[in-house]
């Protein structure tokens, strides 16, 4: 299993051609208390960088973009029912959706954990 990160503060965990996507701990810290999450339905096709989900905190609304393209296999109903999971466990139970990758080459442009850490430190 490999974990990749985007400049928009999404993480994507890849096993074979299956990817799980969520927002990073840094992102949830910036958002503050999350009160609403909308995730894509199974079967929806996403392209890399396209709007995939919505996360809203008390303060603001943000779009979550697809870090990689593919076909959604599952949206996380638990995070829809309990949006605070994004705050308490953003890189675990607070995942947003799973998809089947359409092109593994799209992973090449993403950051690894060390690169992402350095990226956040510069913000």
């Amino acid at each position: 299993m490999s974990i990749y990160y985007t400049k928009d503060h999404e993480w994507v965990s890849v096993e074979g051609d299956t990817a799980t996507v969520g927002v990073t701990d840094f992102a949830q810290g910036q958002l503050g208390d999350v009160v609403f999450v909308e995730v894509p339905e199974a079967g929806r096709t996403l392209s890399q960088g396209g709007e995939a989900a919505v996360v809203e905190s008390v303060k603001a609304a943000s779009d979550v973009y697809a870090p990689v393209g593919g076909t959604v296999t599952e949206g996380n109903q638990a995070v829809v029912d309990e949006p605070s999971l994004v705050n308490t466990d953003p890189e675990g139970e607070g995942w947003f959706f799973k998809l089947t990758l359409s092109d593994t080459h799209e992973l090449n442009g993403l950051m690894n954990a060390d690169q992402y850490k350095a990226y956040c430190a510069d913000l």
Partner: protein
Amino acid sequence: MSESEKTLPLDGWHRARGGRMVPFAGYQMPVQYEGIIAEHLWTRTSAGLFDVSHMGQLLIAGPDAQKGLETLLPADLASLQEGRLRYSLLLNIEGGIVDDLMVTRRGSHFYVVVNGATKYGDIEYLEDKLPRNIVVDHVKEQALLALQGPRAVDALSRLVPGVEALGFMSGGAFEIGGARAWISRSGYTGEDGFEISIPARDATAVADLLADQPEVRPIGLGARDSLRLEAGLPLYGHDLDHGTTPIEAGLAFAISKQRRAGGGFAGWHRIVQELADGPIRKRVGLAIEGRQPVREGAMVVDGEGNEVGKVTSGGFSPSLEAPIAMAYVPLASAAPGTKVSLLARGKIFSGTVAAMPFVPHRYQRKGAAL
């Protein structure tokens, strides 16, 4: 930090206590400490300490100060007793709201607290419109704190014996931790509470003293906004502006009976007409269906999707655990229970006009006046 953002007396204090600083009204201010929902609920159940030193504190003095102010404010200042506060509105000639404010009669002068983002414009407007023998003094060397919540009185009366005798919308001179303070029983959360004006040099010591009380935690701007929204209190620059009249804004209570008949203040003709005929649009509260907040800028739309109004404040209510908003809607749609459609983020939302406040006020009106 950009150069245009100034720092307030408690800047270092907020940072030391973990406040996340953001630009607001030309200053760096804390938006939150531990989190907006926790801070919001703490204020509703205990006591929250807010730094509102960005607000403008003005002293207006001169032999005709009362008369002069009454040409711009629709308040009956003649009946305002010593140490009493009144919520009022600075009006333009068209009856639009230049700012909303608190005015207190304090000895020979009026003590006026105006919004931070509008204070320089207010001063300019006052100096332009008032006769030259009325002096507008901007008190820059005073900090302003607010202590809000049902246990605020317990915490503050421990430090300032006698302060509990103040009734809602009255104030007096006190001492806190050796500092001279003007304290009023007032605020912007819908809760019982106090606003405390102290010299800037004493701000850190007084903030420490207050925050050390077991009932008290520091609260940021984020919760200040969600608290006032639940309390149905408008925010200038969002729910009120130059193009909005007090009647449209549902603030007719701020036009005293005496002044309605007598007039003599800016915008009187339009305001009297709107009082008689009703305004075209009105500020209302909205309960939003579902969990997704509808925010400022969203459109109120009719059945054909035409814009008929707009949302001026909106967010998630931590107390109700549901999205709420304020909007301007046509008068025909302003009655509580009316269903409205809203367009936000490319989606249609359903809302119902709700009576405000969304969360009942708990002001302490029974304190004995000093």
